[in-house]
């Protein structure tokens, strides 16, 4: 495991109104580490990773990404977001732009990369997710799996230091889950730092450097996949695993 931390979360607390969603979250993610976050629904997994690129504000604690500090006042939001790629459950592609334009919009307007170069780079990433032939189509013409792979390519065009995946396969037909997971496995093998919220335990076993289990807004346990699946420490984890692995 590398020592250099890309993402540091310390004492993170968040409330939705009176409801305490995240309770004292601490996590360090080293460069190249793949963290899989799992837990029952409503346990705060999505909210947690959405805090990392400041899509959610938080009330206490601090988050730093690549040495950019993000306190509760979210002052350096734009700097952090440029370094963090995000893949959503519902893809959130821009329906009015072609696949290629989806991938060049941010490089042109945020990084000020010339259009030709941005398009060449975008094609490179579309090849990496194995859909270069769909570049001129619009998101509505693609299958769910293809849309999610475009979303991954779109996030990669910004050369992020960290990629966040918020249940990337839960809105997909079973047939298409594999193609998206394969893309993510490729990405992991290339050394990308990833935080993945998912229920795909096979993916966790194969790829994760650590599995984090959350319940009721807390991290219950974090361990290597081998230890986590073979030898869970907490009763709550054992219950969760028995339910998720049976189905």
């Amino acid at each position, binding site marked *: 495991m590398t020592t250099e931390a890309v993402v540091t979360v310390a004492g993170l607390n968040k409330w939705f109104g009176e409801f305490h969603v995240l309770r004292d979250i601490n996590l360090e993610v080293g460069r190249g580490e793949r963290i899989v976050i799992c837990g029952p629904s409503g346990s705060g997994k999505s909210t947690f990773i959405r805090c990392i690129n400041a899509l959610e504000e938080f009330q206490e604690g601090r988050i730093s990404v690549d040495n950019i500090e993000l306190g509760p006042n979210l002052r350096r939001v734009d700097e952090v977001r*440029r370094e963090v790629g*995000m893949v*959503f459950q*519902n893809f959130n592609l821009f329906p*009015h732009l072609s696949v290629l334009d989806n991938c060049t*919009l*941010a490089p042109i307007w*945020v990084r000020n990369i*010339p259009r030709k170069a941005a398009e060449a780079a975008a094609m490179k990433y579309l090849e990496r997710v194995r859909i270069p032939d769909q570049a001129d189509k619009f998101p509505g013409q693609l299958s769910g799996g293809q849309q999610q792979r475009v979303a991954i390519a779109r996030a990669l065009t*910004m050369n992020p230091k960290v990629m966040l995946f918020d249940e990337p396969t839960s809105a997909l037909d079973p047939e298409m889950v594999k193609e998206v997971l394969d893309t993510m496995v490729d990405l992991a093998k290339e050394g990308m730092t990833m935080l993945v919220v998912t229920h795909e335990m096979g993916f966790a076993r194969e790829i994760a450097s650590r599995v984090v289990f959350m319940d009721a807004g807390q991290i219950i346990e974090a361990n290597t996949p081998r230890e986590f699946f073979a030898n869970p420490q907490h009763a709550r984890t054992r219950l969760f695993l028995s339910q998720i692995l049976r189905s």
Partner: protein
Amino acid sequence: MAIGSRPPPPQFWPKLRRVLGGQTGWGGVLGQLVLVAFVVWLGYEIVANARANMQAQRIASGFGFLSQTAGFGVSQALIPYSESDSYTRVFVVGLLNTLLVSAIGVALATVIGFAIGLGRLSPNWLLARLAGAYVEIVRNLPLLFQLLFWYLAVLATLPNPRQSITLLGWVFLNNRGFVVAEPVAHASFWPVALALGIGVGIAFAAHALARKALFDNGRVLRIWPVVLGSLVGLPLVVALALGAPLSFEAPVLKGFNFVGGLRIIPEFVALTLALSIYTAAFIAEIVRAGILAVNRGQMEAGSSLGLSCGATLRLIVVPQALRVILPPLTNQYLNLTKNSSLAVAVGYPDLFSVFAGTTLSQTGQAVEIIVITMGVYLLISLITSAAMSFYGWRVGMGLGAT
């Protein structure tokens, strides 16, 4: 063994049958022929009946009446007009008045509507409630009532000209309308106007150039000094060199009314206010719906790519919202234009009031006048929707990185 792909069977006859007869087949086609025959017969009866009636009343049909002398006055004319002018000129005067009230009404309604619509979405509690109250009150009262409210309850209660409410001696409000200082053009007017035109051209060119620099070389050009310079600086320099392009002649109270200055009749003010305030309530709801129709995830996707809030709105949210907003917005523009014919209730001389009203009752040429009036409203509406469609097409085409 796999089944190979083959072309579909011939579609011509089944398609023709479906187009002509729907689900009912050839029997349906016969039914439709009967219906067509009935409609043609009905049309013939209407025309024949109208012709017989007009002959019985000795009304000459045709458009000859258009060159006759009108013989009545009109309280607002954008072109020179006197009672001895022809009905054709009355028609043009009325048409221009309709276009004037519609154009100003549409512009005002759009501004107020967008402001109220965005206000309703504001996180500010007070602003959102005020905007909500505006919409609920205004859209639930009849337009005619609102028109009469502005005309009789607000404008008529203003003081008489001698006690006019004045703003700095340039604008006077009284119960005979508004009197404002009249701009008078000087010799340097056209040179300055030309300079302004060139300035606008330069500003657009600078915008295009900045876009090209960003797309081709990734350079961000600061163009606001150029835009400011060409829009304000250039005309200012010309004006300083050649003298002021305009001066304003302040209205002066003489006797019971004002002399000089530009008079805006209260009927026009009431109609414009009523139309724009009423239509704005509907536009506000359209704008609100359009923005809410864009998925929250779009904003999140934009910001998670590092786009600023403004860029996300401009490149992602607004283009998608406009697709939802434009078609119903066009409807509201058409409604406003057509509703301007309520002018007749307060005596504003619009097309409907002077042409389909006074001219019709003086000449009795009902068929011709109704046909012309219908044609004109239809034409205005079609041009409006064509322009809006073109704008929608532009918005759909020229997006984001393109």
